[in-house]
């Protein structure tokens, strides 16, 4: 995470503020107050989200980013990550793993209660894992994350023992995510309908009321004592509460922030960030999401991309750098890795992605795509070189959609007919399930490099019963499968890093994906809001230490 204050004309202020935010993230209890004034207790923060309103506030159910954003205010996880990506204590104070990696003992914090009075103990952890693994919960993200956990044994009130079916080097990363956060077992026992409306956790805030399509009211948990080990201060939050609003239109969201109707917005778009930096009063938090970088997947499971020469030709022809510069106003950096830059094990190789139209043409000639029609589109045996590219208008922001148009234009010079079709989310999944695509951009947020296994192991080509499959490049490579499987069980950090590097070399070197940039995640807030930071786990903001200065 990087934080910077947008004060182009006042660099000194920017330095102080940025320093304060970094300090707030790194040093507990002190640092921030000295630089930006003493925390003020009271006031209700208004948060404006551009993400879809969840249909259930319990992130165990389904498990998407909008749920993670709000659930982080009232639920807590067993572990967290610090700024450098190291796993740190949260609700669990320490953990040990057996020699064979099949048993993990988590020691839990004592004297912690959920906000409904239910004690937090090993029994509660067990109930949560069972809740996540119960098909009736309809969990997808949390369910996948705990796929290797068989059972949880209650050793004592404060020790929960996880029994695994195979060693899992990603277990701690999985448990740091909001989708596996710990909820009150009493709350869960109320049943899905009630728990969806107001899940109960140990976090700094409590769900008070949810007015659908309008807002969720959160109030302070006065008895709050927990928090990740890198939290800036102890005890209850400064804010009285949070009004969590849903403002889907980007321009309205920004106008509401400018008018002081709201204190912080998410999903700040490149043009908004550009305006904000010129106006110079708002503060930006740039917190790329972990997991995969945004990238174009090239469907290698069917012609024409089953031929590596055609894939390479596309990558040589499609120019994205100019588009990223002009359409994103310098708010996004080009990536040459399939992993997010916040991932410690991200491997990057820019030399593979040079554009070269002559080379692209030569490769296509060599691959037999030699005929050209009046528009310059190549064909082979009468089959035109068509690339179907369904674009989800829910997931691709307007700047990204424009970038895809530039990809279309530059690829056409080499003779590709890129057919962009902007569709809504349901149609988009429909097109993917029917394999009616050659190119696709699909974000995937997860903590840790194990996301590579989800996205590129051949097992992920087999669709889930819902038709969904994550390996959209349809990459089917036995060596890669072996590397990803070995890495997922490897407990030695150096060995693990080496295995993931080899795996990423195969993915990048085979031209299965065209990396674009990190999954963008920009927040803008008013200068009066202090002490807010994005969690180093999935980059959601936390308001446990935030206060409103005016």
């Amino acid at each position, binding site marked *: 995470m990087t934080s910077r204050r947008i004060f182009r004309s006042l660099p000194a202020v920017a330095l102080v503020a940025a320093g304060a935010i970094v300090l707030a993230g790194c040093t507990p209890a002190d640092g921030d107050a000295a630089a930006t004034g003493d925390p003020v207790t009271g006031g209700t923060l208004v948060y*404006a989200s551009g993400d879809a309103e969840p249909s259930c506030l319990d992130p165990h159910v*389904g498990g998407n980013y909008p749920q993670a954003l709000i659930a982080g205010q009232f639920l807590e996880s067993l572990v967290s990550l610090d700024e450098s990506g190291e796993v740190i204590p949260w609700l669990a104070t320490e953990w040990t793993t057996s020699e064979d990696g099949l048993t993990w003992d988590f020691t839990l914090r004592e004297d912690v209660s959920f906000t409904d009075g239910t004690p937090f103990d090993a029994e509660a952890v067990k109930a949560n894992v069972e809740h996540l693994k119960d098909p009736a919960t309809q969990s997808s993200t949390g369910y996948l994350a705990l796929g290797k956990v068989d059972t949880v044994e209650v050793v004592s009130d404060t020790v929960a023992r996880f029994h695994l079916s195979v060693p899992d080097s990603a277990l701690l990363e999985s448990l740091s995510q909001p989708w596996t956060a710990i909820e009150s077992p009493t709350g869960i026992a109320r049943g899905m309908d009630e728990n969806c409306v107001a899940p109960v956790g140990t976090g700094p805030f409590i769900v008070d009321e949810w007015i659908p399509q309008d807002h969720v009211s959160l109030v302070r948990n006065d008895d709050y004592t927990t928090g990740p080990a890198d939290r800036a201060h102890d005890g209850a939050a400064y804010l009285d509460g949070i009004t969590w609003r849903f403002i889907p239109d980007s*321009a*309205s969201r920004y106008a509401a922030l400018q008018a002081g109707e709201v204190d912080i917005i998410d999903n700040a778009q490149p043009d908004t960030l550009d305006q904000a930096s010129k106006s110079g009063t708002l503060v930006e938090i740039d917190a790329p999401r972990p997991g995969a970088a945004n990238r174009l997947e090239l469907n290698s499971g069917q012609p024409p991309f089953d031929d590596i020469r055609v894939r390479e030709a596309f990558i040589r022809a499609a120019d994205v750098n100019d588009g990223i510069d002009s359409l994103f106003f310098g708010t996004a950096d080009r990536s040459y890795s399939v992993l997010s830059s916040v991932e410690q094990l991200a491997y990057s190789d820019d030399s593979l992605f040079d554009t070269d139209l002559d080379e692209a043409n030569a490769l296509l000639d060599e691959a037999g795509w030699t005929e050209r029609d009046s528009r310059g589109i190549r064909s082979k045996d009468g089959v035109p070189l068509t690339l179907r590219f369904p674009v989800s208008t829910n997931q691709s922001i307007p700047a990204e959609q424009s970038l895809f148009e530039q990809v279309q234009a530059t690829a056409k010079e080499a003779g590709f007919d890129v057919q962009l079709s902007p569709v809504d*989310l*349901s*149609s988009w*999944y*429909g097109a993917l399930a029917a394999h009616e695509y050659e190119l696709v951009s699909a974000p995937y947020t997860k903590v840790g490099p194990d996301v590579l296994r989800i996205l590129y192991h051949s097992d992920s080509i087999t669709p889930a019963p819902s038709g969904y499959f994550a390996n959209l490049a349809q990459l089917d490579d036995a060596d890669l499968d072996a590397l990803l499987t070995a890495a997922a069980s490897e407990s030695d950090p150096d060995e693990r890093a080496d295995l993931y590097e080899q795996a990423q070399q195969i993915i990048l070197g085979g031209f299965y994906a065209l990396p674009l940039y990190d999954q963008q995640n920009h927040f803008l807030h008013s200068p009066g809001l202090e002490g807010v930071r994005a969690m180093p786990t999935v980059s959601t903001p936390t308001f446990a230490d935030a206060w409103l200065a005016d």
Partner: protein
Amino acid sequence: MPRSRVLRRVALRLAGAAFVLWAVATLTFFAIHLVPGDPAQAILGGPGSQASQEALDEVRADYGLDQPLVVQYGAMLGRLVTGDLGDSYALKTPVAELIGGQILGTLALAALALVVAWVLAVGLALWSTSAGRIGRAIAGGLELTAAALPHFWLATVLIAVFSTSLGWLPPVSNDAASGLVLPVITLAVPLAGFLAQLMRERMLEALEQPFAVSAAARGETAAGLRLRHALRHAALPAINLSGWAVGYLISGAVVVETIFARPGLGRTLLRATELRDVPVVVGVVLVVALVYVLMTLATDVVSRFADPRIAREEAPA
């Protein structure tokens, strides 16, 4: 008019209304099934969910999604006839409850916009018909421009001017009445353009009629002529248009509620469509159709008052 005749007219009207509602439900049901997307996924946590086969099978059986489309359609009609709108796939709450919680906001928005549009249109028509050739040209241009303005563009401009630059009004809705001003203006202005155009033309026609000439000869003032005589003629087509206008306003609410972050039926419909939440989509569309039908009936009654000739023409000779 004999009673049997009145009854027949009422029965015909009701049958027509029922037909409209049936047609709307049918078209909506089949249209949403024509586009790709799996309602079972809406039930199991939205598109892209990684639900298990067991969960999917269970849900399909529970909701009858494994039945042929025609059977599902029949089941839906059966429910609707008894007044049951069903449960939302995504939210698992009764559709009637969901709509009940959202409809007032949308109706208030539409009603206010209709009133404002009428005020603007009458004002513009009265002014332009008395303002000579140049005034008429200006009014004509204004009306055309207003009628052609897309809601999303107008909303964005209004926010930029009245919220961001001047700071007079909130850019997104809030509990205060001030939050309604920009959404209402956004919806009202294009509609006022349509209405004013109609009224001005009719008013000019009316002013050339013999009754207007004789009224003027009796010493009626220019303003009185317009207000007391011509306006009634001019209002007729606009009244008839108001039934359609409510439909237009509610469809505009989809855009306006999204931009101004107002809760309401428009946003409910948008979200339900994205998720393929069939019961909610059908429910909202039906309710909108019902409002439209009721409005059309109401405009019939109002135009009878505005123009007694209608009732007279229908009376037996």
